[in-house]
């Protein structure tokens, strides 16, 4: 079982008290509710009615509630087992707009089911594709998932909207105070205060918005005017399909699947103090949960879903990642679909509160991405994979309209900074993998060579392979022990031939020298023997070497000895 990091108050397997679980579930819903803006955008763009928008939000609550709970499942074939809520996210907005304009809501929902089926198929093969998604690719995706939210968050933070194209002081002030309260409780708050920091900040934001007139009585009246209970109309618009829409929706599903991979990588990392590498089984099950969510969305009449990076940012910030919170958030969301009065509280969320909350969570996503990228040694190849992907990803937002002339079929590939960066990272990783040999050989001359040579060769090669820093360091140290032992093995003036083989799971060093194997002591030589190098140096080097390796053995042939040192990666 993974070791729970000390910064977590409630880890993934912990069971917080019921009241705490429910409150934390509500906190996640506040973040999820920001995405209810997307159904409104689609409906406005394709000319459907406000009632249709309300129905879409209702169905979004049902479908994402279902998939959020499903995602948290640990047992069975579906679900990553992590708190990783889903929302009707921006990944499907460009494709949905295309479909909505071509064939109305029915076509959006039909193609969303198709996207779900594609994602389900992809989830079954993704486990065998790990080499295409090393930490520099998944880390870049996680980083860009955070970056992608910035253009949505920043205008809201500064009070910019369709009627106010520039900075507006009052909403900005409300957003700033909301962010300060949230960040303040998160940094200096102890225990529960940190746990509920976003909730406290949002309540402060709501109160301030009401006091300053940003949240008007008219808007607040929506809570009073909404029905207390109403059965949602499921599948009201039906479904239709179009082969022309296949590419945009498959691309959206692929981009969403990679986002799932990035977000679930973060979930794995934040829940395991000893995290080393991506675990594909939970990724595959998590992707299948997203696929089920998308199929549910299409059948019920909601937009396509993807995992919510902001909510993972919230989990990191509050130190609460218990899967129970996922069940609670999912359950509450599904219930809200039946209680419009309660749902209205989220629907009327003031814009500055949205902006501040998003900015707060984005900080954690960006840091999570950087940490994943830096978990491996970085060389020039990886620098280009990460750097170019970020640069071209950002080009989408920094040069608006840059990709406007692209064929509509390919446009979803270039529909957001995230999609662009993801595609760049995957393609560049494949490209730069060319010419990387998994085996490297060199010679050591114990008469003249020192630790510097081993460091130089292995650090360079470790970076090229993208190996874990500590594993490379252990191999360097073990090789150095052989160099330390050389004078006592009568190897001065002779050569030691080293071959190093790497794959994602193993690092194997084979050292061949003219001479005999040596004993590996199981205990450290006594301190009283240390003054005599001849008596203690070989034994101490062999003992120290044995502490660095996971396994070692000797074989002899034609007067030569091969020392095999194995390191798990």
């Amino acid at each position, binding site marked *: 079982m993974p070791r729970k990091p000390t910064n977590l108050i409630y880890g993934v397997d912990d069971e917080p008290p019921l009241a705490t679980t429910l409150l934390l579930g509500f906190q996640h819903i506040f973040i999820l509710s920001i995405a209810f803006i997307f159904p409104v955008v689609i409906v406005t763009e394709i000319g459907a009615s406000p009632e249709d928008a309300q129905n879409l939000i209702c169905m979004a609550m049902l479908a994402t509630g279902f998939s959020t709970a499903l995602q948290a499942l640990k047992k069975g074939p579906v679900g990553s087992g992590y708190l990783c809520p889903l929302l009707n996210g921006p990944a499907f907005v460009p494709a949905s707009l295309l479909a909505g304009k071509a064939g109305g809501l029915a076509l959006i929902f039909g193609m969303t089911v198709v996207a779900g089926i594609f994602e389900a198929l992809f989830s079954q093969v993704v486990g065998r594709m790990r080499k295409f998604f090393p930490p520099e690719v998944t880390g870049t995706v996680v980083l860009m998932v955070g970056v992608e939210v910035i253009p949505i968050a920043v205008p809201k933070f500064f009070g910019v909207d369709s009627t106010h194209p520039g900075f507006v002081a009052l909403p900005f002030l409300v957003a700033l105070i909301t962010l300060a309260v949230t960040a303040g409780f998160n940094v200096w708050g102890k225990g529960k205060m940190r746990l509920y920091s976003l909730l406290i900040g949002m309540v402060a934001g709501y109160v301030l918005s009401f006091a300053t007139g940003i949240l008007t009585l008219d808007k607040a009246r929506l809570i009073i005017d909404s029905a207390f209970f109403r059965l949602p109309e499921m599948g009201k618009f039906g479904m239709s399909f179009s082969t022309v829409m296949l590419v945009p929706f498959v691309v959206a599903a692929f981009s969403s699947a990679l986002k799932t991979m990035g977000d679930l990588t973060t979930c794995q990392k934040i829940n395991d103090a000893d995290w080393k590498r991506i675990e594909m089984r939970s990724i595959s099950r998590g992707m299948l949960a997203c696929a089920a969510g998308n199929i549910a969305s299409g059948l019920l009449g909601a937009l396509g879903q993807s995992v919510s990076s902001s909510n993972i940012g919230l989990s990191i910030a509050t130190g609460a990642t218990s899967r129970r919170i996922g069940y609670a958030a999912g359950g509450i969301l599904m219930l809200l679909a039946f209680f419009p009065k309660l749902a209205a509280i989220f629907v009327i969320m003031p814009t500055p509160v949205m902006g501040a909350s998003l900015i707060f969570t984005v900080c954690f996503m960006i840091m999570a991405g950087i940490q994943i990228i830096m978990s491996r040694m970085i060389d020039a190849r990886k620098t280009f994979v990460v750097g170019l992907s970020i640069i071209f990803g950002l080009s989408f937002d920094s040069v608006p309209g840059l990709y406007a002339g692209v064929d509509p079929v390919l446009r979803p590939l270039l529909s957001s900074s995230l999609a662009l960066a993801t595609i760049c990272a995957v393609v560049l990783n494949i490209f730069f993998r060319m010419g990387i040999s998994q085996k*490297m*050989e*060199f*010679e050591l*001359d114990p008469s*003249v*060579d*020192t*630790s*510097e*040579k081993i*460091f*130089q*060769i292995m650090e360079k090669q470790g970076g090229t392979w993208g190996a874990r820093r500590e594993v490379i*360091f252990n191999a360097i*140290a073990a090789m*150095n*022990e052989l*160099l*330390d032992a*050389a*004078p006592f093995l009568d190897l001065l003036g002779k050569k030691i031939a080293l071959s190093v083989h790497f794959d994602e799971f193993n690092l194997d060093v084979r050292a061949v020298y003219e001479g005999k194997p040596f004993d590996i002591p199981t205990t*450290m030589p006594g*301190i*009283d023997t*240390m*003054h005599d*190098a001849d008596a*203690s*140096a070989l034994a*101490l*080097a062999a*003992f*120290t*070497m044995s*502490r*660095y390796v996971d396994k070692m053995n000797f074989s002899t042939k034609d007067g030569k000895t091969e020392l095999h040192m194995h390191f798990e990666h």
Partner: protein
Amino acid sequence: METLYHVMSKMEIIHSLIEDIPVLFVSGKIDAVTSKDLETALIGLIDQNKKFLVIDMEKVEFLSSSGLRVLMASLNKLKSRDGDLLLAALQPFVKDVFFMTGANRFFPIHASRAEAIKSLQA
């Protein structure tokens, strides 16, 4: 087969006397080659009848068993004269070497040079 030029290990030792306590500031990599310089420096101080020595290892990047052996031999010699060898400010990897091999049980290991000196004055 890669052809590479031979590179010498880099290590520096600076002698200092802080509040009448001999302190060695060691930096770089302590391996089979450089440990001989460390041995010379330590033997020199022990031969001057110094009983308590502090080594500031903040800038030590690597420590192989050759270096460890020199430290342990010096410690043994000092202990036989009722003295001690105090290690200070070890970087995580260097600290790991002591804990991994069990050599930590022989040495007083301090978080900082000031702490090591203070412990001798107590």
